[in-house]
C-alpha cells in the first residue's frame, strides 16, 4: 500500500469529520450544559456559576476564574479506566481551560469562579476536542458573556496524507519498515475561536514537517468553521423547542 493514497476505513474524505451531534440543556441541575459527539467520541459538559470561589487563596479580586475539569468515565474505554483524576486528565483539564479562556469576558465579578465539568461518555480518539466543543456550548448555554465560540478538531497525518478527525483505529495505524512496526501517525488536536480564527489549542503527538503542519492548521481552520456553525445552531435551538 502506498502511503500517499491512504484510504480511510470508514470511507470518509480526508477533510471529512465523523457524524457530529450537538445538543444543549442536557443536564437539568447545571446552570448550563451541552452534549457533543464526533461519531463514537461523546462528551458532556456542565457549567456551574459564576459562584463564590473556594479555596480563598485562589480568588482573584479583579475577575472571575475559569476552572475546567476533564475526566473520562470508567466505562468510556474498552479496558476499564480507573476512576478519578490522573496525570493525563490533569493535563487535558489545563489545556482546555487555556483553550476556552481567551473568548470569555469574565471581568467585573470579583472572587468568583465558573466551573466546567467535562465527562467523556464514550472514547474513540479526539475526546479533548469533543470536550472543548461541548464546554464552549455549555458556557454559552449558561449565559456566560463571551465574544465568540471555541471549536476544536484533531487533524492527523497518516502516512503522508493529512486527514481530519482521527478515530482510534486510525490513531493506531502502523507501517512495517525492515520487519519492525512503526507508528506512522501524527495527531494534532487544535482549537480556534469562531471570531478571528485565533488558535487557542495546538498540541502535537508524532512527527511532522513544518510545511505539513501549516497545511494541517489550514485544514483545521476550515473544519472548525463548520463545527462552529453546528455549535451556534445547537445553542439557539434549546428554547425554541420548548415553545
Amino acid at each position: 500500500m502506498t502511503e500517499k493514497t491512504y484510504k480511510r476505513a470508514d470511507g470518509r474524505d480526508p477533510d471529512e469529520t465523523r457524524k457530529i451531534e450537538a445538543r444543549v440543556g442536557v443536564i437539568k441541575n447545571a446552570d448550563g450544559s451541552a452534549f457533543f459527539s464526533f461519531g463514537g467520541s461523546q462528551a458532556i459538559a456542565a457549567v456551574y456559576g459564576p459562584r463564590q470561589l473556594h479555596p480563598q487563596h485562589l480568588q482573584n479580586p479583579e475577575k472571575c476564574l475559569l476552572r475546567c475539569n476533564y475526566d473520562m468515565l470508567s466505562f468510556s474505554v474498552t479496558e476499564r479506566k480507573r476512576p478519578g483524576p490522573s496525570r493525563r486528565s490533569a493535563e487535558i483539564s489545563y489545556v482546555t481551560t487555556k483553550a476556552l479562556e481567551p473568548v470569555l469576558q469574565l471581568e467585573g465579578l470579583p472572587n468568583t469562579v465558573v466551573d466546567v465539568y467535562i465527562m467523556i461518555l464514550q472514547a474513540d480518539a479526539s475526546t479533548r476536542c469533543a470536550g472543548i466543543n461541548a464546554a464552549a456550548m455549555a458556557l454559552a448555554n449558561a449565559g456566560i458573556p463571551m465574544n465568540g465560540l471555541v471549536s476544536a478538531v484533531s487533524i492527523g497525518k497518516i502516512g503522508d496524507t493529512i486527514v481530519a478527525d482521527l478515530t482510534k483505529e486510525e490513531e493506531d495505524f502502523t507501517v512495517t519498515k525492515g520487519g519492525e512496526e512503526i507508528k506512522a501517525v501524527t495527531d494534532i488536536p487544535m482549537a480556534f475561536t469562531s471570531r478571528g480564527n485565533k488558535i487557542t489549542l495546538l498540541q502535537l503527538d508524532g512527527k511532522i514537517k513544518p510545511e505539513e503542519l501549516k497545511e494541517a492548521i489550514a485544514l483545521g481552520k476550515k473544519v472548525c468553521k463548520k463545527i462552529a456553525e453546528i455549535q451556534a445552531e445547537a445553542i439557539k435551538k434549546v428554547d425554541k423547542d420548548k415553545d
Partner: protein
Amino acid sequence: MTEKTSKKEESQKEEQGNSEKERIIVAPGEVVAEGKDFLPGDGTKREGNEIIALRFGLLEKNDKLVKVIPLSGAYIPRVGNTVIGEVIDVTFNGWIVDIGSPQLAFLPITECFKYVNKRDLTETLDFHDIIVTKIKSVKSRGVDLTMKGRGLKDLQGGMLIRVNPTRVPRVIGRAGSMVNIIKEVTGCSIIVGQNGVIWLKGPSVDHELLAKEAIDMVVEKPFTEGLTEKVRVFLEKRKKELKQNVEKKEEKKDKGEEK
C-alpha cells in the same frame, strides 16, 4: 363559544406580536449589526465596524440601540434591586444573606428595619429567616443590603419558589400585569424578587400550588405572545376544578358523617 373566540384573539395577537417585533435568538460571537449607525447596549460589544452579541439571548433593536436580553445566567446584583434572601450567618454587627448572586450579601444592624438588641441579633433575624431586602451598594468586596424602605420586611409562612432571574420581567409582566392576574385569580399575595426568588402566601396550600403552576408556565414559555391572557384562561379553568374538588371532598365528608 368562548373558547373559540379566545383562540381567535390569541392567534391575532400572535400575528401582531410577530409583525411588531421579530425576536431573534443569538449565540455569542454572532454579528448583530453592522456600521456606525448602531450603538452597542447590554450584552453586546463593538468590534471595529461590527457589533457582536456577547451572550446567548434574544436580540432587541430599538432605534439605534442594539441589546441582547439574556435567557440564562446567574443573578448579577444591581443597586436598588429588591430581592428575597435567606439569612445564612449572624455576625456581631449584622447578618450575612444569601441572595443567589455569585457573592454573598451583608446586612448591617444600622440598616435593619426595626430596633435590634445588640446583645442577641438572632432575636431580630435568625438563621434561615427569609427577608425582603434592597441592594444598597455593590462593591468588589461584596454586596451591601438595606431594609429601610417600604415593603422591606421579614417573611412569615408561605412558600418560596426559585426561577431563573432572567425570567423575572416575564413573571412580573408589563407594568405588573402578569403577577397581578395571578394574585387576583388565586388570591395569593406574591412578592417577586429581582433575583428570581418568589414568595407566595395564599388562603390555602392549594391556592399557593395553583399560583406556582401558573408561574412555572410563564417561566417555561418565554417566547409565547399573549401569554397573560393564556395564563388567565388557564388559572380560571383550574380554579373551577379546584372549587369542584373542594365541594366533592366536602360532600364525601358529609356522607361519611351521615354513615
